């Protein structure tokens, strides 16, 4: 048994500037280890309805994202989550903007739509002093998963379902056991991970979990503190596996 990591996803600026910062500060205290900050996009290719609603909300609020990035507290580990497709026209500028506050970037479409350019983008991200946190899914060939698990910075992200926030019927423990055998890096499991799956994926050997839609759903219904309660609960579950 070992320390299990809690990765919290939050859409940049959700539900508004202030509460976004508040969520980060409070959740850190309750035991969130790493943040994945979703850069709002008009086309959330792989995201389910809940995260899509959060993007819409921050666009409607006309949040100044660059300004907000500057205001981010100096906290442990921030990873920017964005689709490469959104940044590809000016990837350097994007990396330049985030390099001060963030320590890594996660591009969910890197291996799916840009596999032939993996080495190029990997090098590029590293050149900006950032880690390339690689996103894989169970549909990837085993050989590819084990290859990129060596390259991936911080941890290897393993997205269980084809989309976030929708509980499609799958066998999470079987999926995690299968990759555990081929991944030496830290293995973080997320993407459509439902709260019911958590214990099973931890038992199957995940080093941590990534949660997103559940926080947003709680903020939507009952506000920030309700989401923070969940952070605390999750920390409790993870610590049972210490």
């Amino acid at each position, binding site marked *: 048994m070992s320390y299990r990591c809690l990765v919290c996803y939050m859409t940049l600026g959700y539900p508004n500037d202030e509460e976004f910062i508040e969520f980060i500060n409070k959740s850190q205290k309750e035991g969130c280890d790493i943040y994945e900050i979703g850069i709002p996009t008009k086309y959330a290719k792989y995201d389910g309805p809940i995260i899509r609603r959060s993007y819409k909300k921050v666009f409607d609020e006309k949040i100044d994202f660059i300004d907000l990035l500057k205001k981010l507290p100096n906290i442990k580990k921030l990873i920017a989550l964005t689709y490469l497709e959104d940044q590809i026209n000016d990837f350097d500028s994007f990396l330049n903007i985030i390099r001060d506050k963030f320590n890594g970037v996660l591009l969910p479409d890197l291996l799916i739509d840009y596999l032939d350019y993996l080495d190029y983008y990997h090098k590029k991200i590293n050149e900006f002093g950032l880690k390339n946190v690689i996103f894989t899914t169970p549909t990837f060939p085993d050989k590819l998963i084990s290859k990129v698990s060596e390259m991936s910075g911080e941890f290897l992200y393993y997205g269980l379902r084809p989309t976030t926030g*929708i509980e*499609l019927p799958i066998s999470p423990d079987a999926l995690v056991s299968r990759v555990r055998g081929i991944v030496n890096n830290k293995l973080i499991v997320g993407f459509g991970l439902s709260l019911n799956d958590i214990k099973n994926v931890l038992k199957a050997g995940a080093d941590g979990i990534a949660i997103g839609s559940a926080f947003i759903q709680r903020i939507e219904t009952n506000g920030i503190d309700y989401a923070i309660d969940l952070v605390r609960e999750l920390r409790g579950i993870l610590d049972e596996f210490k």
Partner: protein
Amino acid sequence: MVDNEEIVPKVWYNIIPDLPKPLSPPRDPPSSDFSRIELLREIMPKEVLRQQFTVERFVKIPDELKEKYEILGRPTPLMRAKGLEKYLNTPAKIYFKYEGATPTGSHKINTALAQSYFSLEEGITHVVTETGAGQWGTAVAFSSSLFNIESSIFMVKVSYNQKPMRKTIMKLYGAHVYPSPSDLTEVGKKTIKENPDHPGSLGIAMSEAIEFALKNKFKYLVGSVLDVAILHQSIIGLEAINQLNLIGESPDILIGCVGGGSNFGGFAFPFIGNKIGEEFIAVGSKEIPKFSKGEYKYDFADTAGLLPLIKMITLGNNYVPPPIYSGGLRYHGVAPSLSMLIREGIVKWKEYSEKEIYEAAKIFAKTQGIVPAPESAHAIKAVIEKSLELKKNNEKKTIVFNLSGHGLLDLTNYESMMERWS
């Protein structure tokens, strides 16, 4: 006699973990205000949906379902086409897997049966689907009757009127058959309002079936294109591998026709996954030139766009296929896994015109006695061409093709082809 146990597999084979590259996930279009993946959860039986997204290489066939596969007469025969070989005077050996030998006359029953079984397991009492030419509808009508489930089939109106025998079979099995567009759904009503004489299309029928299933809390069964249909169809290829082993043959060339890709994938993927064979040829219709003119991109699986976008070789979901007689090939796309294998050069393709496949069907009927489904005749045309090529180079290779269905219920179509092409 060989024990069937030696031939019929205990598991289905899933090619997803053996593909050369990651498969792009299904998704919604940018402007979407609802999640089509969430919709899948409402319309598909749970176990079918789980299998759609499974990445296990092998999926167990439940024992009870295996028993039902026996009722279908599985394993279907693997036959040598000596009559055709002789006629072509080719050094090649030609074998075919005969899916026309199932009670409903095509491979479609292999997945219909599985999906009906998983529906029953979940306590579902009524399933819904669409059918164009009638093969898929017939399969669903029979499979649901085997499990005492009710079925409703939306049949494209032109086929409903032109192929009364298909309708009769489905009704004999106990299905409710509705001509589409119908007044049972909003999509149908809207279509009729715009054009009272609308002949219908597979896309509209699909949308009606999905809407009808949603409204009544029934489940929708999927005939092709999605990975789960190919998974269930893998029983064809797995059986064929065992049958070839038993007679000590190792195939060089594997051939099948492609509508959405289910019979080709079901037949060829187990060979590809087991690294048996050197050449794989997918055959389409020249009139629906998806291989030669299609693009590899995200597109809707259905015309109405109720199902998620999938990345595939496609002519576009608004493409209206011309009225060829191979109804089962009148589809705009190709299953994502097969599309990738074609893009990666692992599977080759051919396209033939209706006239060419009509001639091939005639040769096969005359030399082997089997009237092939017009869809399957596309594979036969490729087999003939390949055999003649081997003859020219005096190469003694072994060809195996999938004869996905018989054409005894397509005789009016053959009648029309005779008029059109003689």
